């Protein structure tokens, strides 16, 4: 079941609807991505496209937001991503081939847009193999204008602290965390999207979890010290 997380809606649509009267309405209420794409492309159904965007907006936007660490930039990239989607769908569906992978296709476009942006700002140069060891690159060691995880301890909620800790991860580890937890991709889908082996994706996730745990513990200890003082 988890292997087909991307095609979740497709499974719902394909489920036999014989037991509940409500379920007869289910395919109409939750049509599969492929059906919505077909309706938009072939019938110019704007409502179908709106449903698609609204269905996946959180997964795509959270990924972009985590990658670029800036809400305004994420807004721009989100808009650009779906502009590219619209253009590609109008050009005989572009590279989209269906098969329940609409979100994966959109995320690939979003990732390309994010990488283009990061390359343009020369922030992607340190995506090296040292990330496998949990060590961050030179870019992440540079002073940052944003407050560090430890600085955010006082007066911040747990979620903000977690977001700050994720921002401190290396780009590779951060991307896997975002794709798994924000975009709900499986590790196999992550490995396909990021052009790496599934073992590499799992390794990055493991180091990300270990590093996040360390950062959260350090933040909590500092908070305890600050309160006791």
């Amino acid at each position, binding site marked *: 079941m988890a292997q087909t997380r991307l095609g979740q809606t497709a499974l719902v649509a394909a489920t036999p609807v014989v037991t509940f009267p409500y379920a007869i309405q289910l395919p109409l209420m939750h049509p599969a991505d492929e059906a919505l794409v077909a309706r938009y492309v072939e019938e110019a159904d704007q409502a179908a496209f709106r449903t698609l*965007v609204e269905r996946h907006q*959180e997964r795509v936007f959270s990924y972009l937001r985590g990658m670029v660490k800036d809400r305004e930039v*994420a*807004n721009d*990239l989100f808009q650009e991503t779906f*502009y590219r989607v619209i*253009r590609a769908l109008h050009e005989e569906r572009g590279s989209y081939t269906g098969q329940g992978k609409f979100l994966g296709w959109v995320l690939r476009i979003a990732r390309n*847009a994010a990488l283009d*942006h990061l390359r343009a700002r020369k922030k992607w140069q340190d995506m090296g193999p040292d990330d496998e060891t949990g060590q961050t690159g030179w870019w992440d060691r540079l002073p940052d204008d944003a407050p560090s995880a430890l600085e955010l301890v006082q007066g911040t909620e747990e979620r903000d602290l977690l977001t700050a800790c994720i921002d401190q991860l290396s780009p590779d580890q951060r991307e896997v965390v975002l794709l798994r937890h924000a975009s709900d991709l499986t*590790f196999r889908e992550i490995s396909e999207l990021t052009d790496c082996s599934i073992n590499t994706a799992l390794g990055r996730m493991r180091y990300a979890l270990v590093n996040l745990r360390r950062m959260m513990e350090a933040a909590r200890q500092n908070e305890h010290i600050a309160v006791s003082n």
Partner: protein
Amino acid sequence: MNNGTKDILLHLYDEATGAEDLRSLLRDEELRQEHAALSEAKFRLDHLKKERPDPFVLDAILAAAATGEGLPTSGQRMDRAALPVNRRLRKVVIPALSTAAVILFGVAVGQFSTNSGTSKPQDTAAMAVGPDDLVPPESLYRFVPPQQRPTPASKSDPRLAWDDAAPILGMHRRIQTLRPDGRLDWGEEAVPLESLPGNGPGRLQMTGTRSQ
């Protein structure tokens, strides 16, 4: 990352089947601790706040989907301004110059290899590896007058064959004349000049006896 840790992660994210497998993995103390540590971090990530774009962004996208307005044409990048003219020129001129330089270099290398390929290898002097090989090829003697061309040195003669030129031979003879019969080394006791070999033409003589 070993297979145990990999399986732990897959179980943690519900991407592996078989609860029995997980139980067998957790019998290992090390993997059990790993599972506990990763579970704690994963639990926090499960409550990661998901964000939505601003409403006006959705409106712009839906408007573009309906009317096609604002969409870039194929090949046009939306996130970058058009390239300035000088940058565009640079993008054309530099690659063209680079290509021309590579072609010129290739032609030069080809010409060089063609020329070197036509020269006969036997014309070049071979590397000397033995005493006999030190005799230069006869072609070199064309620069020496015929009467001065030396005869090849015998094997017992320590002189090199190319030392046989007349001026060199003359210099060699003079050096041999100056050299005393007995070897003198540094640190030896001083000897009277009379004891040194003399009385021959070119031999060392006492200054007082030179006119005699």
